[in-house]
């Protein structure tokens, strides 16, 4: 923990602070000590803990699934192989039922997003103080373990999906087709003058719905996990209130963790399903 006096506000703020690397106002590069310094670094700062955990969990996912793929055979599969097969079949069914065009990239993308987000969300179930405590023993001041409670991570993924949507919209329909999709509906007319009048109205409506997609995709994931993390932190505050409160806190942590499993799974699933649906919309003509 930080050396300042430990208050509940300080505790919460400490938990919500990322380990930020960036340029100090005096021109040197280094880690920020505190929220004020992190703010002064401005835009060109990087959240080291978010990057580390997301890349680490991504690598873990690749390693595990590669191992399963190498061991795959026609014999009776063992426990872990069964699990991987089940996950892949689950993704495959979902993609087949919601995506009707030919694109070899959608199913692997869905699998990656689902397992990766699931792993990142699962870090939320590790008790809130364990890893930050270990990190502070190792001399690292701040450590926010769950990458999906950092809007930078969720916006990064949503922008990736958004870029793919735009790319396939333009590739499948052509630039003109995409432009006409943005300007020629939902209001349609046969009269050319009326058509021109409708263009700005249609463009405004379609543009808002286009931009709302990545925004809602990322904010939904971030909000759910942030709320879960916040409640874990608030329950953890009970541990400072004596033995009775600490016992109640332990029970509450467990109960909330059990309830949170639903949210962890559901949000990973929704992110994947919406990605498939957006790509399907990008491929289909109106």
């Amino acid at each position, binding site marked *: 923990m930080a050396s300042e006096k430990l208050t509940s*506000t300080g505790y919460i703020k400490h938990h919500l602070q990322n380990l930020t690397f960036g340029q100090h106002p005096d021109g040197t590069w280094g880690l920020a000590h505190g929220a004020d310094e992190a703010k002064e670094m401005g835009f060109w700062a990087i959240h080291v803990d978010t990057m580390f955990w997301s890349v680490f969990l991504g690598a873990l996912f690749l390693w595990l699934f590669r191992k399963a793929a190498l061991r795959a055979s026609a014999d009776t599969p063992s426990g872990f192989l069964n699990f991987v097969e089940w996950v892949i079949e689950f993704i495959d069914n979902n993609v087949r039922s919601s995506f009707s065009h030919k694109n070899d990239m959608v199913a692997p993308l869905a699998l990656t997003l689902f397992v990766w987000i699931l792993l990142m969300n699962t870090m939320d179930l590790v008790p809130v103080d364990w890893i930050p405590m270990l990190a502070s023993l190792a001399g690292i001041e701040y450590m926010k373990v769950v990458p999906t409670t950092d809007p930078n991570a969720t916006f990064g993924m949503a922008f990736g999906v958004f870029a793919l949507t735009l790319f396939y919209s333009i590739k499948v329909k052509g630039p003109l087709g995409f432009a006409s999709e943005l300007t020629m509906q939902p209001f349609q007319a046969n009269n050319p003058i009326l058509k021109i009048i409708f263009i700005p109205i249609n463009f405004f409506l379609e543009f808002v719905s286009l931009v709302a997609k990545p925004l809602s995709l990322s*904010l939904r994931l*971030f*909000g*759910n996990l*942030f*709320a879960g993390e916040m409640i874990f932190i*608030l329950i953890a505050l009970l541990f400072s209130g004596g033995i009775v409160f600490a016992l109640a806190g332990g029970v509450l942590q467990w109960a909330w963790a059990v309830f949170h499993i639903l949210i962890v799974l*559901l949000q990973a*699933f929704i992110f994947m399903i919406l990605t498939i649906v957006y790509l399907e919309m990008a491929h289909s003509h109106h």
Partner: protein
Amino acid sequence: MEIALMYVAGAVLLGLAGVGVGVGVGVLGARFLEGIARQPELLPMLRTQFFIVMGLVDAIPIIGVAISLYIMFAVIGG
């Protein structure tokens, strides 16, 4: 005065989020039960769709809950 207003803001956020999601998930759950009462064989498909829509309905209120808890415990302090 300012701190009292912030508490009220947090309470309004939390309360309205609860009202909204209560109505939303209530209607959704009622229709879900009606659906499976009429066609029990559709249960697996309906359950998946139910959870997807519940996740969508849930998103904005849960963001409100997070922000209101943040206001009440971290911004005001105690």
